[in-house]
């Protein structure tokens, strides 16, 4: 239902204000034509894409180019790689959901034979990262904001030594009151990132007049829907190998799915120009959105700089659950006004997203979640407001759908409730309200190639509704 057709590409503003003549460069007529001479003419014509047409490829069996190596066990994921003199990192994680760090003592760990270097957050040029808002420390140095925060790291000759030695790092904490319920957090009584409010991003979408429409509705349906936190659980844990060479360049092999974006973050944390950072993305053993940002890469890089050795770091399954990102839990209050014959005329939605301790990809999630929250239905009056709040819990970020599954659970559950109460067949209720060709989305986009009704009808036909 993208808007790339001819009609949608025609922006009212551009057609009114900019014409092809305005953009014609003033050149001498006898001058030879240069590539830049060809003006962009608005509105831009989008020819019907060949890709949109049904081709014989649909339904045909496709094999993956890497399928053979996978089946032979020959694919090299990060953990299958090693380099001469490679050593192993371990990260000490917080003991508290929220606490001030009073001191970190690494001396006992350093004294263990086989430990080559230790590292704390203060050693980073900029101890903050994040794909959109840089609010997350690489290693927490002043405050821990959830149990998965790393506070110190070390590198040792074997993974066993690293794992044992990291337990000898002594951290003294002053526990702080923590907030876990997003509905409490939104009151700002306990601040996760003081002095900033816990509500770190919000979105409002308005269309028509919901209050007026509620007054006219025959039935009003109101219910709260909640969803839980979900971890991606890729079978391959986050893994990376960093090698800092004598020329001051660092090479990082990483299971990161977005290496170019990740390099920006690594560059900032290390205070190293991007030209000195070589990122090598490998085959990823499952991402699902959980490997869209850096995690321990800067830690491994600095440990490599300090030791002159390649340093490998692999998350344990426990680290995966507490230190990688998860799906946002949503608390969604839905109020829907319906006419006697089952037409949706107004929908008001208030959502609170549990943002966890750091922002990560919350901006994308709240945006997509809000736009999709009213559902694929023609509702003339819509009001959506959504707030994302910090809590002292595992960071929530990108996961398949960016908020779409949460809101779908809510609006479809309510559709079932409406159909039951009004005695309308659930399929009929949806067909009555579903988007059709040219429908307008809650944010006013004209929708094209809309096949919701056809899909529903075909499905119903196939499973014999």
């Amino acid at each position: 239902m993208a808007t790339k057709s001819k009609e949608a590409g025609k922006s009212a503003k551009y057609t009114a204000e900019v014409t092809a003549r305005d953009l014609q460069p003033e050149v001498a007529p006898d001058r030879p034509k240069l590539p830049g001479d060809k003006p962009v003419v608005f509105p831009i014509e989008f020819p019907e894409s060949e890709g949109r047409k049904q081709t014989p490829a649909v339904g045909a069996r496709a094999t993956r180019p890497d399928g053979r190596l996978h089946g032979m066990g020959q694919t090299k994921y990060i953990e299958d790689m090693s380099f001469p003199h490679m050593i192993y990192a371990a990260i000490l994680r917080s003991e508290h959901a929220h606490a001030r760090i009073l001191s970190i003592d690494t001396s006992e760990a350093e004294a263990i034979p086989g430990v080559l270097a230790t590292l704390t957050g203060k050693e980073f040029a900029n101890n903050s990262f994040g794909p959109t808002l840089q609010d997350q420390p690489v290693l927490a140095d002043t405050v821990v904001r959830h149990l998965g925060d790393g506070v110190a790291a070390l590198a040792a000759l074997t993974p066993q030594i690293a794992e044992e030695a990291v337990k000898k790092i002594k951290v003294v904490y002053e526990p702080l009151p923590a907030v876990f319920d997003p509905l409490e957090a939104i009151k700002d009584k306990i601040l996760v990132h003081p002095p900033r409010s816990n509500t770190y991003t919000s979105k409002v979408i308005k269309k028509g007049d919901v209050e007026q429409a509620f007054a006219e509705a025959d039935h009003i349906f109101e219910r709260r829907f909640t969803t839980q936190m979900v971890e991606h659980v890729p079978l391959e844990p986050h893994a990376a190998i960093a090698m800092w060479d004598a020329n001051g360049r660092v090479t990082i092999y990483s299971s990161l799915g977005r290496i170019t974006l990740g390099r920006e973050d690594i560059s900032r944390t290390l205070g190293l120009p991007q030209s000195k950072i070589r990122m090598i993305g490998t085959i990823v053993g499952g991402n699902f959105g959980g490997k869209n940002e850096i995690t321990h890469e800067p830690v491994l890089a600095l440990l490599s700089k300090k030791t002159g050795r390649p340093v490998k770091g692999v998350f344990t399954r426990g680290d995966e659950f507490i230190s990688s990102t998860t799906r946002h839990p949503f608390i969604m209050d839905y109020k829907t006004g319906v006419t006697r014959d089952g037409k949706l005329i107004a929908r008001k939605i208030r959502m609170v997203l549990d943002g966890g301790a750091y922002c990560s990809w919350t901006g994308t999630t709240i945006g997509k979640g809000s736009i999709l929250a009213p559902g694929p239905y023609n509702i003339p009056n819509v009001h959506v407001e959504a707030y994302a709040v910090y809590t002292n819990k595992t960071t929530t970020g990108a996961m398949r759908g960016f908020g779409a599954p949460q809101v779908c659970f809510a609006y479809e559950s309510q559709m079932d409730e409406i159909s039951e109460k009004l005695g309308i067949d659930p399929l009929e209720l949806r067909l009555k309200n579903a988007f059709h060709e040219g429908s307008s989305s809650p944010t006013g986009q004209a929708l094209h190639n809309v096949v919701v009704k056809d899909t529903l009808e075909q499905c119903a036909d196939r499973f014999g509704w």
Partner: protein
Amino acid sequence: MMVQLKVNGELRSAIVAPETTLLGLLREHLGLTGAKLGCDVGDCGTCTVIVDGISVNSCLMLAGKANGCEVTTIEGLATANALHPLQQAFEERGALQCGFCGPGMLMSAKNLLDRIPQPSTEQIKDALSGNLCRCTGYTKIIEAIADASERMSGARHA
């Protein structure tokens, strides 16, 4: 400690720390990185190898316990000339996406077909109950195993 075992038909030995798992021995000492470490607690099955005819989670088996055993790993499935019918079927049916669960899935499937050459769908599902996949939804994996079973029985009767 010294461990001596037969891996994919070849006699191998290594000196390992007593806490080393069979998976650690295979991956770090023998250079066979096909079997993976996924969860380290025996839940995901991506470390599955066959030890004396039984499929095991090699992350839970100590290397010392494998002394004198015969071990088959994913590296021992294909010959120099041909893929194993299971590997062929997995590839053709797109049963592997990210591939990380593949080595374990294939070894569980191999063990099943060794014991039951023509398994029912229920028996295939049962044999895969210790192997997790987060990409495929299992459908194509189950189809691929049934397909391989047919090919193999066809070859036997030919």
